[in-house]
């Protein structure tokens, strides 16, 4: 056996022999309903928080850009891949955040990998929240920096680790997330800021799940916690609240433009298609002009979280558009996931390997576009699951 034959033969996928990984999701001309494996369902596992994937302004902008500028840029941002919409979106995001500079990346994953590996090197120290996204861990690995993890959402544990670093503490970057993607909990950001500032370290906040969701203007947890001026870098994605694909790094304090060559994910990836940039610009405008979308999203989250809690499910610690329902075994989780689809609801099935604890998750994500009837359908399916389904 050569390396590849051995690798392919030994690698195991979660729920290897089930239909999970071949799940075919077809949306039906709107963000919240579709067909999954042939069944009509309410889509409650898409992270489409504001439901903008079918917003007429976004679709129109996307189509017009494709007609005018073509289907792709065929070049990196440092070569031929900077089109008017890339430059305009960077300016508009900079204005939105009050940032000195914004760098766009082709995906959210690349934003973390690219900016972290550009900011840190072998002589730096990275301190990551234990429940950080894979892109943060991968960025840390690529940077070559000495990397420590601290206990999830525990500012006292971070404090201890910075103290242990001694005079290396000012050469460290602390990384946390706004909303954690598995259980929907938020970071105690003001506490983290206090610790980071005391040691002279730097702070990066990944607002992938909180951009467009938290804060008076939708700028995320840093805005909601009133600490935007204490955060060095914000990373975010367009693939959730903005309803398309892409990522960015923004900074109020630093001129990140200087890192365009050092961030290899930026320098060596083809830039986003002009149609994607145009729809992201239109979606950002919608976020700025329609704060009521955030209200609707959080109402849907409150109703769903409260109902599932009342049904006796073990959930993440706080109300959030991401509601992580704990299931103790992978067989039960798979049965429950099928049961929910049969009862008209699609959620994400999260295996042990990707879950933050010794459990699988049925991950529900709410959208501002869910109607009250759709929220009822979600809750009713979970009620049946508890009363007469696999989790009875």
């Amino acid at each position, binding site marked *: 056996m050569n390396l590849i034959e051995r690798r392919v033969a030994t690698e195991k996928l979660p729920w290897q022999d089930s239909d999970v990984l071949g799940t075919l999701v077809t949306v039906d001309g709107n963000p919240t309903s579709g067909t999954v494996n042939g069944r009509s369902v309410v889509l409650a596992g898409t992270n489409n928080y504001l439901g903008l994937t079918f917003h007429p302004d976004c679709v129109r902008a996307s189509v017009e850009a494709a007609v005018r500028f073509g289907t792709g840029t065929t070049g990196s941002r440092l070569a031929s891949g900077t089109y008017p919409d890339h430059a305009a979106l960077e300016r508009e995001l900079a204005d939105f955040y009050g940032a000195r500079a914004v760098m766009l990346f082709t995906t959210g994953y690349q934003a973390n990998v690219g900016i972290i590996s550009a900011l840190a090197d072998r002589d730096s120290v990275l301190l990551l929240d234990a429940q950080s996204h894979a892109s943060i861990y991968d960025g840390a690995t690529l940077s070559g920096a000495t990397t420590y*993890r601290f206990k999830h959402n525990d500012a006292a544990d971070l404090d201890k*680790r910075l103290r242990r670093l001694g005079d290396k503490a000012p050469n460290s970057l602390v990384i946390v997330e706004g909303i954690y993607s598995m259980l929907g909990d938020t970071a105690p950001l003001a506490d983290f800021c206090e610790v980071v500032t005391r040691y002279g370290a730097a702070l990066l906040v990944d607002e992938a799940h909180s951009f467009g969701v938290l804060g008076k203007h939708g700028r995320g947890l840093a805005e909601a916690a009133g600490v935007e001026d204490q955060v060095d870098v914000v990373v975010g994605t367009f693939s959730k609240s903005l309803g398309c694909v892409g990522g960015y790094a923004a900074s109020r304090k630093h001129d990140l433009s200087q890192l365009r060559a050092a961030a290899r994910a930026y320098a060596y990836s083809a830039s986003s298609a002009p149609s994607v940039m145009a729809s992201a610009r239109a979606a950002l405008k919608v976020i700025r002009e329609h704060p009521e979308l955030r209200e609707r999203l959080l109402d849907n989250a409150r109703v769903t979280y409260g109902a599932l809690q009342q049904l006796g499910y073990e959930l993440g610690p706080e109300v959030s558009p991401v509601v992580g329902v704990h299931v103790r075994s992978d067989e039960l989780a798979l049965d429950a996931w099928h049961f929910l689809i049969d009862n008209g609801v699609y959620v994400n099935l999260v295996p042990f390997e990707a879950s933050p604890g010794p459990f699988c998750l049925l991950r529900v994500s709410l959208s501002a576009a869910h109607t009250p009837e759709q929220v009822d359908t979600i809750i009713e399916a979970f009620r049946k699951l508890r009363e007469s389904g696999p989790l009875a």
Partner: protein
Amino acid sequence: MTKRENYAARLKELVNQLAEEGTHVDVDSDLVDDVGLSSIEIMELVEQLEDTYDISFPLNDLAEIRTINDMVKELERLVEKQ
């Protein structure tokens, strides 16, 4: 008892608490393949050591640690570096 023996005894005790009852644990046992610890349990083990000895394990080195003996060596290095 030398410092190294002390670390090994403490680690064996912690690993025994995490392993299923009846699992044979010695200093050369592979923590995943022989003892059957999950990645979450290994991180729990690391956190306990970090708190006990007031040190931080770099993630960069964790991938190289397969056995209690490997962990003892890392522990010695980190405590000494303090």
